[in-house]
């Protein structure tokens, strides 16, 4: 195995993300408070935390879906221009009335001309291993295949920043492992910045350069993952780090669970 070939693409086009004092409250309830985070171009960050810890809210703020936050957020592309984040949701969110290839071409936005969009969409579909399924309706695909189409749609515009909101949470264990290596591969090839929200500590350790633990709306832990890629889940250090993270995660309580015996 040539490890060198699996280092991140050096011709980086990832965006840097800077969060300063990000806060968000819904009515009286404060969900996020004073979150500072610096993400360098091309980095793969995993955000873990219990349900209700505010990790999804943080993700929606970075993705631009939630504008009502306090503090300062800046996303800078490598070439200096401002870029839109691409989002992968927990559900594939494919248009059922559009064929697979049309769904991927949808990711190029309303301005794209049909002919060129389809050519790019075909390349993106091939990258996720579904090059021959372009003409089908989304509902004949399996759950994992639908998420691969959603990934192709997110990547077809060659984004600088990809934001993933538990995209593998609804998949079965085997499909999830396949998707994780697919995600790692396209990230290494394309060099975008990736921010992944997940419940799954092993998934965070497999994919991320850095794991950030959110607890009660604050960053409780910011941990660099030193392992070389591709990562072996069986390795002893991997297991130790997984246990360390799990313990930290279990100690952190979301406010709603404090009174549960």
């Amino acid at each position, binding site marked *: 195995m040539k490890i060198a070939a699996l280092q991140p693409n050096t011709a980086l086009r990832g965006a840097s993300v800077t969060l300063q004092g990000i806060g968000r409250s819904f009515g009286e309830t404060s969900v996020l408070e004073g979150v500072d985070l610096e993400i360098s171009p091309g980095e793969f960050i995993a955000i873990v935390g219990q349900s209700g810890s505010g990790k999804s809210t943080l993700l929606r703020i970075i993705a631009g879906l939630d504008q009502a936050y306090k503090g300062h957020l800046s996303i800078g592309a490598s070439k200096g221009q401002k870029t*839109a984040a691409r989002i992968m949701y927990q559900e594939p969110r494919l248009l059922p009335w*559009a064929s697979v290839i049309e769904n991927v071409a949808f990711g190029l*936005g309303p301005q794209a001309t049909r002919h060129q969009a389809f050519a790019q969409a075909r390349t993106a579909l091939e990258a996720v291993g579904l090059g021959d399924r372009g003409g089908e309706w989304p509902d004949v695909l399996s759950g994992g295949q639908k998420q691969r189409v959603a990934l192709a749609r997110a990547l077809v515009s060659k984004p600088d920043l990809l934001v993933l909101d538990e995209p593998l949470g609804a998949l079965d264990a085997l499909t999830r492992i396949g998707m994780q290596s697919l995600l790692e591969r396209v990230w290494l090839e394309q060099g975008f910045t990736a921010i992944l929200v997940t419940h799954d500590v092993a998934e965070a350790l497999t994919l991320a350069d850095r794991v950030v633990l959110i607890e009660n709306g604050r960053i409780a832990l910011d941990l660099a993952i030193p392992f070389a890629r591709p990562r072996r889940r069986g390795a002893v250090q991997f297991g130790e780090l997984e246990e360390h993270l799990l313990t930290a995660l279990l100690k952190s309580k979301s406010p709603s669970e404090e009174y549960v015996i």
Partner: protein
Amino acid sequence: MSELALLAGRHSNRKREAFASLLPISPNGFVPWLLPLTVLVLWQASASYGALPPSILPAPSDVAKAAWRLTLSGELLANAAISFKRAFSGLIIGGGLAFALGLSNGLSRLSERSTDTTIQMVRNIPNLALIPLVILWFGIGEEAKLFLVSFGVFFPIYINTFHGIRTVDPQLVEMARSYGFKGFELFRRVILPGALPSILVGLRYALGIMWLTLIVAETIAAQSGLGYMAMSAREFMQTDIVVLAIVIYALLGKAADGSVRVIERLSLSWHPAYRKGARL
């Protein structure tokens, strides 16, 4: 067929298949017609053996003869053409208004707040109850029929268009917005296709109401059309023509319903419920 395939556009292969499945070529296509055919045979037999007096119900062969006679004289075609014109003019006017208002109320809260309550109040008036008033307003001219049909088809199309737009998956809308879709492009690519199944259900209901309203209006107040033909035949005890008119209503209703089904198959071929093999 070629025009339809042209309209079908990108997924023409699948759509052609969907279209072929509507033609009664396969042996299964014969099954739905078994019951009407049996009734027809029994009816003819009892009329031929004198069990049914012609003044009550004429034999199917007499009805067919009346159809032939009126076709030759041109009377049938002229009346049918007039009824057809009235029905579809009403559908276009009432349906068009309903579609426009359904869109604007589905898309804009302000528009909904200012008109929906009024529409819901007027909706509960049976449109045929307006016949006396309409005759006073318009006499028995074309406007009366046009008004009644437009009024009748308005509500099913309005309600289903409105409902269709309001039930478009908000997750899809959020996704499309994040890819930069807004305004007309968002409407064309996401909202309208999402609302289309519901809109077509409204159209199907509207077609039924369209014929019903028109026939009643023509029976009461008209000097031409199929309803008038039946009503004037009654005065001369021409039961064969009365029955002929009723048979034509049945066929027109079936044809209208069938045409919406073709539209559904062609435009909703992505939908599992409308795909080949799935019959509603």
